[in-house]
């Protein structure tokens, strides 16, 4: 199991290092979302402070969808899904490796996007750095957990890239709510710090467990 996870993870990271396709797409798209927010809403600094967490997570979620689409589109292109199906390892290991790779891709985009967000919207993001990083991590885990599962579903449909956000966004509403509230606290807002953090943790456990258990059905031949 452990070897399956690391093998898949390394494979995806290596491909990404060579092509930079997932990062390129999700980063540029997330940045675009932030720029469009600026034009459509024209916020003052106080407003940006209040709503910044929400903007950030909309950008992360939309960018994340692009990276997640890539996750299994990659396997489909060279017929690698069959290779995965034939791997004599536990399906859960494949799922966790894929999911972990997606979490890392999302986190990289987020960490590069954050300082740009701070500059563009004049928001101080250094108030609670450790807490902020933990929230980003937990939010990305929650989003990628179902996201990885649905990515594997989406590649087998006729509308591939279109179906993933339609499936994923309504299901991940609880994750997004908790992540936005916790991120707002990290930026200095007056929300309950431990409540949303713990909730995010609980949601992560639920979503990862259910996706882990059902992934075997998706990867059947």
């Amino acid at each position: 199991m452990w070897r399956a996870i690391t093998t898949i993870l390394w494979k995806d990271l290596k491909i990404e290092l060579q092509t930079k396709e997932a990062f390129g797409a999700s980063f540029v798209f997330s940045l675009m979302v932030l720029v469009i927010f600026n034009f459509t809403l024209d916020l003052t600094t106080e407003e940006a402070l209040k709503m910044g967490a929400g903007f950030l997570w909309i950008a992360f979620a939309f960018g994340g969808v692009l990276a997640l689409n890539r996750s299994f589109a990659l396997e489909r292109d060279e017929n690698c899904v069959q290779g995965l199906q034939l791997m004599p390892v536990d399906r859960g290991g494949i799922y966790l490796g894929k999911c972990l790779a997606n979490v890392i891709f999302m986190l990289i985009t987020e960490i590069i996007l954050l300082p740009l967000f701070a500059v563009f919207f004049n928001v101080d993001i250094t108030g609670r750095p450790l807490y902020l990083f933990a929230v980003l991590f937990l939010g990305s885990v929650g989003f990628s957990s179902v996201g990885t599962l649905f990515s594997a579903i989406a590649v087998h449909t006729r509308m591939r890239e279109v179906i993933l956000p339609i499936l994923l966004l309504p299901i991940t509403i609880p994750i997004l709510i908790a992540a936005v509230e916790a991120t707002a606290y990290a930026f200095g807002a007056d929300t309950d710090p431990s409540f949303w953090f713990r909730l995010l943790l609980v949601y992560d456990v639920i979503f990862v467990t259910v996706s882990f258990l059902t992934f075997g059905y998706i990867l059947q031949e």
Partner: protein
Amino acid sequence: MNTRKDTMGTALVALTLVAMMVSLYMVFLYAPREATMGDVQRIFYFHVPSAWVAFFAFFLVFVFSLVYLARSNKRWDTLAAACAEIGVLFCTLVLITGPIWAKPVWGVWWTWDARLTLTLVLWLIYVAYLMLRHYMTDPERRATFAAVLGVIGFLDVPLVYFSIRWWRTQHPQPVMAGGEGSGLEAPMLATLLVCIATFTLLFFTLLRHRLRLQSLRDEVDTLQDRLEQAG
């Protein structure tokens, strides 16, 4: 093969028809006029039973999806799909009757209260479920994928509901969403219960027809296959 008389089906349709007449009588003539809201409150007798049927149908999607994953028998997949379709239909009715009632009573068409938001999110999840089915051709794979979504979608319901509730308590609420249903008069309660029973009957009637339609479709498919092989 389907030429034999469908006595059960006919009886169900007749029973539903009678129940509908009784319900209409009770809603418009038997139930008293609500003191503050007036006649517009009568939409309540359609709104609440629709919501009940929608939730019931989505629960059945969850159950049939689980059974399908355990047994992988095509029957359970057909049942789950039929329930999802009918659930979306009644969920749409809830989302239409709700605002019609809310506008004169609350003064707004919509408010982001937990129950309303949950209904909208449910609608989105199960429309996505139907879209996923529509975009897949391989029947076995479609059944498995839909079953996985049917399970996850339903498990998501309490998470969505409580997230929105907790989120709401931290944000100012635009209108007073007072709890309706608290302290219903006896005739009103009786009318509501009869309407719920009628809608449930209607659900089973629709489900039965949907399943018959599916079996006829399957039959046409096999006949077509045989024709192609022969010719």
